């Protein structure tokens, strides 16, 4: 039942901007849904598409990738790499048939606790509305044959 469905959301954050922004949300006692779980990296540029696919495979209903605003990367250009990778990954995920809304890229600066809080709320609601990710349903991988159209049959 979608009503009691609680989305699982994995967040990837860079240490310098977005993770700090999330810390700020905390120190400012801003409230957001408890559905998010953060993986801390030094730079969003470390994040591999492989990790995102893994998160979905492991059961994430949504993945939120965050990094410094363009121009602000602590390592100069990591976030530009991330942007290119995510945009290309989106093309691939579309072919895999995964709803594009399940993967989101946001720039969060160290001072944008409020923006993160807003994004966290929006994203959680978006995923809640989408329902559980089909990748969770083991039956998707079941080798069984789908019901055939009789199509005339034998006689």
């Amino acid at each position, binding site marked *: 039942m979608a009503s009691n469905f609680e989305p699982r959301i994995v967040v990837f954050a860079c240490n310098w901007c977005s993770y700090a922004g999330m810390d700020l949300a905390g120190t400012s006692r801003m409230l957001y849904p408890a559905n998010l779980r953060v993986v801390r990296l030094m730079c969003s540029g470390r994040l591999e598409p492989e990790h995102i696919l893994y998160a979905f495979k492991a059961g994430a209903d949504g993945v939120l990738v965050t990094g410094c605003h363009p121009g602000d990367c602590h390592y100069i250009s990591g976030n530009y790499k991330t942007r290119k990778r995510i945009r290309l990954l989106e093309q691939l995920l579309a072919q895999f048939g995964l709803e594009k809304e399940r993967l989101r890229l946001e720039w969060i600066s160290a001072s944008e606790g409020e923006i993160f809080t807003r994004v966290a709320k929006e994203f959680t609601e978006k995923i809640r509305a989408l329902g559980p990710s089909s990748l969770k349903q083991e039956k998707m991988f079941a080798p069984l044959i789908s019901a055939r159209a009789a*199509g*005339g*049959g034998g006689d």
Partner: protein
Amino acid sequence: MEKKDRVVTIQPITRLEGHGKISIFLDDKGDVEDAYYQVVEFRGFERFCQGRPVEELPLITPRICGVCPWAHHMASAKAVDAVYHVEPPPAGRKLRELAYNAFYVHDHGAVFYALSAPDFVVGPTAPRAERNVLGIMAKVGKELVKNILAARLEATRILETLGGRAVHPAMTVPGGVGKPITEEQRKELEQRAAKIVELGKLTLKIFDDVILKNKEYVDLIIGDIYLHKTYYMGLVDEKGKVNFYDGKLRVMAPDGKIVAEFNSSDYLNYIAEHVEPWSYLKFPYLKSVGWKGLRDGADSGVYRVGPLGRLNVSNGFATPLAQEAYEKFVSVLGKPAHATLGFHWARVIEIMAAAEAALELARDPEIASKEVRRVPTATPDEGVGVVEAPRGVLIHHYKTNSEGLVEKLNLIVATVNNNAGINLSVKKAAQSLIKNWQVNDGLLNMVEMAFRAYDPCLACGTHALLGQMPLEVNIYDSKKHLYRQIKRG
């Protein structure tokens, strides 16, 4: 009075590239009431090639069959050329043809020595443990077999030089081939081609000595068990000679009349495919005659392709040694030759023809030209590519969007063309060989020989892959209770 329903199943049908089974139904007298030759697997390249960039298909479709990957590589390449409206420059085309002829030797050679020969060299009713390459070795001696394998390796090397790999090549690109060859490579290819010409001669001689000089076999070949009067189809060049790579499709009626000759791109006006729920293989037939069920004769649309088909529809070969052998073939089997086992003979003649053609091309200095491809400029749309696969006519037909992404495709594969023919041959052989519960290993093998003649490549047929099941004769009562079982071996 309940009618008993009994079935003999032969699975797997061994020594062919593919996956099929024969179900033979006995009536209550123990005679064959009906026999079905089923292809039991399926993949569906027609579906998963959709959405792929069309220039990738010559790299994907060869995986339909690991035995004749070059046939799919070339048919696909020609279809893609057509889609992009680009023609290879002379050197590009000749390199393709050189590779393709070398491939014929490579494929036919393997088929004859590893798959067909045992039936004759070792003997159709010999214990099956001996009916294999080792059995042949025992008969003709290890040295000869070694030489044959070594000679065939020359064809392998030619394919490796031109396609990178002998199995699943990466050679063609839209408008030609990926890479030119050097003059040094051409010389090397020429030497190798000369060696496969020798293999061609040797093979003709072996066929002569072992089979044609053996009355028992000749009777078997021309005898009624393996005879079918059907239509035939094949590619011929402007002189009406056999051409494996290109030409027009010619159709010959059972009485030898040429009833159609058309550009391969018009195939849809002449060929349609019938579907049966009990086989993964479709049944193509001539539209002009129509599908009349699994029957032979002039009023049934059933036609046959492959070595026999090619020799029947053509006026022979462009090269001397092959032409000479062709004439002997006609003198023995007539024209058109309806003897199914004639496939074997036609096959060894084609080894000769392919080897000779390969040598001619390898001697042509132009193949070392640097201009081997043209970059397409036109907007891609639709195209058909047809070649003679070793097992017969092979059609690739692609339609793309303006970006060259495949929207729809159609594949009519050699063995599929022969599907109805194979069914006819199997049923007829079974009926004449199995009588009054007489079902034994030797007889069943002779039933298998009926289709082994076609060398049906079921991998191609279903664009699907092999599988295995036990061979046994199961006799059921009408309630499907097994009350008798004959296991081979």
